[in-house]
């Protein structure tokens, strides 16, 4: 069982392991999705880019939270 102190390090190691393989495929997808979604809500390019940046960060944070929850659940098994 991993302690609360070790958990952040374990998450970083897990992300690093995943980062070397499949996680990078999420990057072009996040960029594309955030730009297109932002473009359907604004008309001017500046506003689109600002919205896309905020939306992209939101997606990354959401994915990180889901990943952490799944990881914690798998440790509790």
């Amino acid at each position, binding site marked *: 069982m991993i302690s609360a102190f070790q958990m952040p390090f374990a998450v970083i190691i897990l992300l690093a392991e995943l980062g070397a393989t499949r996680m990078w*495929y999420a990057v072009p997808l996040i960029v594309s999705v955030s730009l297109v979604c932002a473009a359907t809500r604004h008309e001017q390019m500046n*506003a689109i880019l600002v919205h896309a940046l905020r939306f992209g960060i939101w997606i990354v944070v959401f994915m990180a939270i889901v990943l952490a929850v799944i990881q914690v659940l798998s440790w509790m098994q």
Partner: protein
Amino acid sequence: MEKTATEKAKRDEPALEINLKDPWLAAFLAWLVPGLGHIYQGRTGKGVLFFVCIVGTFYYGLYIGGGRVVYASTADIFSMQFLHDRWQYVCQLGVGLPALPALVQRARALDNRPPLFGDNFMRPPRENPAPGGPPFQSRDESNPKNVVQHPDELAEWNYKLGDYFEIGTVFTVIAGLLNVLAIYDAHGGPLVIPPPEDKKDEKKKESRDNK
């Protein structure tokens, strides 16, 4: 019939009058080639952005999936079997012209004609090996002495491409679904987000009305 839409997304963004021209024609063009509907309306910047993002995502997914991940079932198009075999194609079709060669490849497969553009481009998987052709089998990567037998060609593709079959499918499906948003934008203009001040005013109005 020409239509205009007013976009006032935020207070710091000036209100814009957008000439949507013929919205239905724009929507059709936006489906046919992502971004073309916007270019027709004179919204060139957004048109180019939609084209690069959506078509780029679609072809990147197709590349990852070795050209195999976009195909239409050989079942009757209006049957449930068509959806059951490859429902992802319905989503991929949202991208328009780039996904249409799969229907040509399907028609050629049904007529027992050879596929166009080589053997790897959007053709449906075979259920039985071609007459005189090799059976559906591949070498076990962990032990090349072992031969893996596959029940059909789709299983062979999944075995050979591994995760890339799924990743490519996800990319192409998302590209098709993103174009649905772009089509809506071409038809009706941008989705207006009311500024926070307006929301507060509405709440005040509602509370006044309730009193």
